[in-house]
């Protein structure tokens, strides 16, 4: 499963700048959606349904539940598009924040210790699946490359939290590191990731 992770990036696929169009499009789409434009919602769906379902699935795991949560997220975009404020961040960030938060809410509601342990035992599998899925497209390749530029602890802290849906204290327990350390590694790791990806 680890083979190919260290191949040089960009061997295949379109050059930089390809992939999803500029974020301005998404903001414009959201404002059309806010006015009840169903065609715009369809276009929005084409743009975000894959990443929304992907991130929900990474956290929730069960395909049926993931579809349920992802559909709630997409309907929320339709319902609350008027609340999107481009002054407070990009459309992509707004959509993905909503999706991730929903997924995390779902897995955290009513959890018990035993379940935590089982999830924890399987988290290594989850991480590998995610990293393996991050192989083909350019966006994935960029993210993978930037994740690789983090220190081991930064990367594990970020990916266990994001793809595993754990709190920073739980991540600390999983990694056997002090909670304060994980907290700062998450921030440092995300800052490095942000700078590497060139997003602001």
């Amino acid at each position, binding site marked *: 499963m680890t083979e190919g992770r260290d191949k040089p990036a960009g061997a295949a696929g379109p050059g930089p700048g390809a992939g999803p169009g500029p974020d301005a499009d998404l903001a414009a789409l959201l404002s059309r959606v*806010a006015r009840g434009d169903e065609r715009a*919602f369809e276009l929005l*769906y084409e743009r975000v349904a*894959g*990443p929304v*379902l*992907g*991130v929900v699935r*990474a956290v929730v795991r*069960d*395909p*049926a*539940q993931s*579809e349920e949560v*992802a559909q709630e997220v997409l*309907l929320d975009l*339709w*319902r609350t598009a008027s*609340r999107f*404020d481009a002054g*407070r961040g*990009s459309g*992509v*960030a707004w959509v*993905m*924040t*909503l*999706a*991730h938060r929903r997924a*995390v*809410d*779902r897995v955290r*509601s*009513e959890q018990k210790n035993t379940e935590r*342990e*089982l*999830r*924890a*035992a399987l988290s*290594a*599998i*989850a991480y590998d699946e995610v990293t393996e*899925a*991050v192989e083909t497209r350019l*966006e994935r390749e960029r*993210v993978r490359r930037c994740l690789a530029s983090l220190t081991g602890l930064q990367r*594990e802290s970020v990916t*266990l939290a994001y793809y595993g849906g754990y*709190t920073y*204290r739980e991540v600390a327990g*999983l990694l*056997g590191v002090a909670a304060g350390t994980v*907290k*700062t590694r998450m921030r*440092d*790791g*995300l800052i490095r*990731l942000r700078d590497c990806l060139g*997003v*602001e």
Partner: protein
Amino acid sequence: MRLRGSDLHTLAGAYALDAVTDADRARFERHLAGCEACRQEIRGLREATARLAAASAVQPSAAFREATLRAAGRTRQLPPVVRGRAAAGPARRRLARRWWLPGLVAGVAAALAVIAVVTGLIGPAARHQMDPAQLRNHTIAAVLNAPDATMLTAKVSTGGTATVVMSHRVDALVFMAAHLRPLPAADRYELWLMGPRGARPAGMLPAASRAGMVGPMVVSGLAAGDRVGLTVEPAMGMRRPTAPPLLDLRLTR
């Protein structure tokens, strides 16, 4: 940068990753309200986490697309916020629905079923063609999916926790352990089924993952009155336990 609560401020990364409890989130959001620099930072970090989401994209089915677009057409939209507090993120609905064991079991089983589908080997008819890893995944999925699946946990006396999911119907159990005390290289943990007529070896535990997790391991062939035991044995494994059990977990009937 205003570091009124510099300790709080270091939560920025965890907050952007949703890796905080509801209480921490509320505290941090109060802090955000009075800290423009922090809001700026969160904005940037959210752009980064959004790319993590994009990197995990999967292709939803055509049925999903149709159902979602149809549902949108039937859903009333919220008006914009005209005055009052600045537009916050979309309202969050707390999902009270319980999905403890059944949901988890379904999730794990589904994840493994994906493996089975990908390898084109689902269903008992294909059992004989499975390699050991596929058979193991198949059995794990069967145990977790079984209507009589039961989860048991116990402390290991030298440290750590053992978790067992068992099904009499499948006649197997799935064993996992967390945070076991590390052993010298010459020793390994050995798993046993300990019945009224003695102990049967059930496998050597593999090395722990980076996160301190061991397993899942599959043990088949359960007998009435079995307990799950764990001992420290020489690394090559023993036919009979030579050390006192560090775990004694009674299976349900």
